[in-house]
Every structure is written in C-alpha cells, then in structure tokens.
C-alpha cells in the first residue's frame, strides 16, 4: 500500500493505442474522409445494404398506412395495457439517441480527444433515433393528424395542454432535444461542408455543398465566434440530454403504478440510455470503419473506450435493478412486493431473465481486455445490450400494466404482426438514414481531425 505509482514504466501495463494512427497530415485526413463522399464510387455493398434497409422502411410505410386506415386496434394494445410496443419502442429509441449527445457534448467538455472521430456519426445517429422515437407517440395517438393538440396553440375552445402532465413535458423535452441536436450537428458540419464545396469537382456538388456551407471561408473572426457557440452548445446539450431521459422516466415514475413509482427511475433511465446508446454507436462504428477503411481514425482505442463506458453504465443499470428490488421488498408495500414476485415468477418472467442475461451478465465479459479489443465480440455484445435494453422497457411497461392493484384489472399483452412490422420498420428507417448519411456527408468531422493532426504535431 505505498503511495508511489508503481504503474509507471511497468512492462505489463499495455500501451494505449493512439486516437489517430501516426503519419497523417491535414491533406491526408481531409482526402481520406472527403473521398468517401466525393470521389469513391458507390459500392455494390452499399446498394445491397441500402436496398434491404429501404425495403424494411417500406414495411413501416405499409404498417403506418394500415394503422391510419384501421386505427390502433390493429396493435396488441388493450385495456389495461394501453401503452404496449409504442411506448416500449419510443423509450428504446430515445435512449439510443443519448450516446450521440453524450459523445459530442459531455466528452467535448471533458476534453476527451478520442471523441473526435466518432462524434459526427454518433450525432447523426441521435437525430435518426429521435426521428424513430418521435414516430411512436405520434402514431400511438391513433390520429396523428391531430397531434398538434399537444402543442399550446390558441384554439377556438380556449383550452390549453395540461402543463402538469409528464406527457406534455415529454413533448417539450423531445422536441427541444431533436431541435438542439440538429443545430449542434449542423454547426459541426459547416466547416466540413466548406471543405467538400472546395474539393468537389462536379458543378451540382459544388452548388449543393456551397449552399449548405453558407459561404464559410475559415475566417479567424468566424472561428472565434464559432468556437464560442460550439462550446456553449456543448454546455447546453449536457443538461438537456440528462433532462430528456429524466422526463421520459417521469412518464412512469409520476404515476402510482407498482414498479413505476420509484425515485431511482431518473438516474437509472439516464444510465440505461447511455448504455444502449453506446451499444448502438458500436453497432454502427464497427461496420463503418471496416467498409470505409476508417481504421486509422476509429482505432482500437475508441472501441475499447466505448466498451468501458458500456461496462460502467451497465453496472449503474445493474445497481438500479438491484435497488428497485430492494426498495420494493424493504418497503413491505404489498403491491410492490407482489410486482417483484410477478417479475420473477409471473407470465413474463422469461423476459425478465433474458433481460438480466443480456444487460447484466453478458457485459461482464468486458472486464477482460482481450474481449474489449476483439471487434467481433464487441459487435455481438453491442447487439446483446440493445436487445437487453429493449427487454428492460418491455418488462417495465408490460409487467406493471398487466398486474395493477386489483385482480379484476389484470390483463395480458401480446404484440400483433403489425406491432412487429412497425418496430422492425423503424429499424429500416434508421438504417436507411444511416446509409444515406455516410454516402452524402462526411461521417467523421474533418475539421476536428485536422485539429487532432495539429495537436499531434505539436507534441512530437
């Protein structure tokens, strides 16, 4: 127990992989990232992937169209399970979005250099995930064309939204989150759009990127204000992202339903959101670096760090599960105790055990460095965690609603084929947008990579 630091020069401490592979110049990072958009031809693999994703998106279109024609009766929802898949999927998608903001804002404030090559597509992922999430409450209303009722507007009836309801807080939280994420993402893109404008050869590309870049010319006066705005946005997005999943958890915890009415929900929802979000970033980053040869920019260091964040947030989630149980039993409140019993032995207990397996047990493998640095293991792990986080929301929504206070109000829930078509369809929407994004915009921030090159040169 000496106060000295024995780690230094210790041969067993593994050397950290660099954030950017050595030997890169301003020109080489710019060329390699912009080539993926400008010069490299669209590959067959992209077309195949896009076609599959777009077909799945087609399924979503059909499912939503049928919903609009027939109404929410085509879903498995009933009384008492009025929420069902729509809310499970909403919470799942919005949670996935959180990692993007965490990477772009919180890691920026903490001056983590490794965020640089993953923040752009993580932010894009946030936007697309919020789009998928927002769809569910919208169509869950059954009459999506009436959704404007949720916004305060001067109606002829003179009534206003119920501002004391978490569901209205949710409207404001999610729409603010979507807007601010879009602004943040676009501000980050401006210098890169200018780079693409200046490197594009064809006239249409010059025009389109030129229009989007708004005449950015890298002026020092502009950078001066730009950096100030970017830092402020990061500072604003940080409390925002924490507030969004907190408000989402209020949807549950403000209600008195057993299993929902707990104060641990906000922190454990936020941790769960970041957990699933990092899993999704890995799910996207691993194929992206492989197919676009971005191994120099998205190094093992990034993947390992993301795995560590997953492990840490996964443990917070595990702590949340434990205390949920403990507080229910400790309170001695018979409805809460009964709910614990229902999770372990009720009709949906297999979902609960699967959730523990996916979210708590499997990720413990990440303690082992060899697992954290194995790309295949990480990819599979990221999918397992995403399934686990979806199961978590299913358990929360369905078990509590099927086992209310009175046995006469108990029910059962099973999703229909339309529930599945809508859910899988949103994955198609998400993947389609990701495919389009990597094809038409730089998936890695070029300006920030140049900053990294400058930083590396200074320290040589």
């Amino acid at each position, binding site marked *: 127990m000496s106060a000295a630091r024995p780690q230094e020069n210790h041969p067993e401490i593994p050397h950290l992989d660099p954030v950017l592979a050595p030997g890169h110049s301003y020109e080489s990072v710019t060329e390699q990232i912009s080539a993926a958009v400008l010069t490299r031809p669209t590959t067959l693999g992209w077309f195949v992937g896009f076609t599959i994703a777009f077909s799945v998106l087609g399924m979503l279109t059909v499912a939503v169209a049928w919903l609009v024609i027939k109404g929410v009766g085509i879903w498995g929802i009933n009384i008492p399970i009025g929420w069902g898949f729509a809310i499970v999927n909403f919470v799942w998608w919005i949670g996935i979005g959180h990692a993007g903001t965490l990477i772009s804002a919180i890691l920026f404030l903490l001056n983590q250099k490794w965020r640089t090559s993953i923040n752009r597509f993580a932010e894009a992922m946030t936007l697309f995930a919020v789009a998928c999430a927002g769809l569910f409450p919208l169509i869950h209303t059954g009459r999506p064309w009436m959704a404007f009722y949720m916004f305060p507007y001067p109606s002829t009836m003179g009534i206003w939204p119920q501002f*004391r309801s978490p569901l209205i807080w949710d409207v404001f939280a999610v729409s603010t989150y979507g807007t601010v994420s879009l602004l943040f993402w676009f501000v980050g893109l401006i210098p890169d759009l200018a780079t693409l*404008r200046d490197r594009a050869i064809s006239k249409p590309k010059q025009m389109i990127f030129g229009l989007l870049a708004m005449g950015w010319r890298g*002026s020092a006066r502009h*950078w001066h204000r730009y950096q100030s705005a970017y830092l402020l946005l990061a500072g604003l997005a940080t409390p925002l992202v924490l507030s969004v999943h907190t408000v989402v958890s209020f949807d549950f915890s403000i209600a008195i339903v057993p299993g929902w009415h707990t104060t641990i929900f906000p922190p454990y929802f936020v941790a769960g959101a970041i957990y699933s979000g990092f899993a999704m970033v890995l799910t996207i980053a691993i194929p992206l670096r492989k197919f676009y040869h971005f191994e120099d920019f998205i190094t093992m260091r990034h993947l390992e760090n993301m795995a560590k964040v997953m492990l840490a947030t996964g443990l917070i989630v595990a702590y949340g599960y434990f205390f949920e149980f403990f507080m229910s039993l400790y309170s001695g409140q018979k409805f809460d105790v009964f709910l614990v019993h229902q999770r372990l032995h009720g009709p949906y207990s297999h979902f609960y055990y699967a959730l523990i397996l996916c979210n708590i047990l499997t990720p413990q493998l990440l303690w082992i460095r060899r697992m954290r640095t194995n790309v295949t293991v990480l990819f599979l792990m990221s999918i397992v965690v995403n399934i686990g986080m979806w199961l978590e929301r299913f358990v929360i929504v369905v078990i509590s609603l099927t086992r209310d206070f009175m046995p006469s109000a108990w029910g059962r829930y099973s999703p229909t084929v339309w529930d599945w078509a809508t859910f899988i369809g949103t994955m198609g929407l998400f993947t389609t947008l990701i495919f389009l994004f990597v094809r038409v915009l730089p998936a890695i921030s070029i300006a920030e990579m140049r900053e990294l090159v400058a930083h590396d040169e200074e320290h040589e």
Partner: protein
Amino acid sequence: MQERSHLYGVMGEFETAADLIRAAEKTRDAGYKNMDAYAPYPVEGLSEALGLRRSWVPFLTLMGGLGGGLTGFGFQYWVNVIAYPLNIAGRPLNSWPAFIPVTFELTILGAASFAVFGMLALNKLPHPYHPVFNVARFSRATTDRFFICIEATDPQFSVTESTRFLQSLDAQHITEVRDEEAPLEHGHG
C-alpha cells in the same frame, strides 16, 4: 481607374499554423487593423494574435436562455392562473414545481437557438460569395493552408507597401484579391 473590378486586399499564404500566428501578430504590430486570417481549423492563439475582442455570442446565448425560460414559465402561469383557471380540490393554481420541466426545456431551446443563429448573424453568414474566393489557391484554406488578407479598406493599405510587408513575413503566393462582381457605383466613379 475604369476597371470593372475593385481591389479587396492583398493575400499571402502560409504553410503552418505557427507561421500564421507569427505573421498575424506582426501584421497587427505593424498597425494594420482591417485584416483577417483564414485557417482550415480553429487555430489556438490566433484570436489573441489578431487581437479579437470577446465575442457577443455568450451574451446572446444568455439572453436567449432568459427569454426562453421566462416565456416558458410565464406562459404556463398565464394558462393555469389567468386564461383557464381550474380549481381542482383547492390545489394552488400556480403549481410552479410542475412548470419546471417545460421552463427548463424552453430555456435550453432559447439559449441554443440564440447561440447558433446569433453566431451566424454576427459572422454575416450565409454569405455565399466573397472576394477571397476569387483567389485560386484559396480553396486550400479549407484543407491545409493558412492565409492572411490585408484589406484595402485599411487606412494604412497600399498595394505595393502591403505586398512588400507580406513578403517580409515570408508569405508565399502573394496575390491581389479583386472583387469582380463589385457594383460599378462602388466608389470608383
């Protein structure tokens, strides 16, 4: 002087950020005021070298945040207390804790919008055309080259003197920046 184009300034190119900062400092020390530097990424220390004042963006952001928050709370107060008061078991109409989430979200929304649109407005963007784009090599300002432009509006500006000055800073590819599309009535009559 019947030229259709008018002179915007003279521009010199530098290969590294360190050269650019040194040149910017010297240009400022030489007494030039209307000038700008161009870089492919935000160069640390460049704002100080140019002597740029603190930007107005943080102030605008604060105003946006205050405006958003006050609007958010004020509106909820107005709806629940003035426009459509509902007495539910005698509970207070101004149940302010329940109004916090929306107030908070609108604070962030206001602040973030003001930060972004304020930054763009102060930078006078969108501004798709600018005379510096007429310099052929300037397209590298968004890849790997650094530029300084001394503008013709500077009281100390003269084509020969300023060019010679840039030469003394070891600038490469010194060129005149001409504004091809300047309106004819622009001071050359």
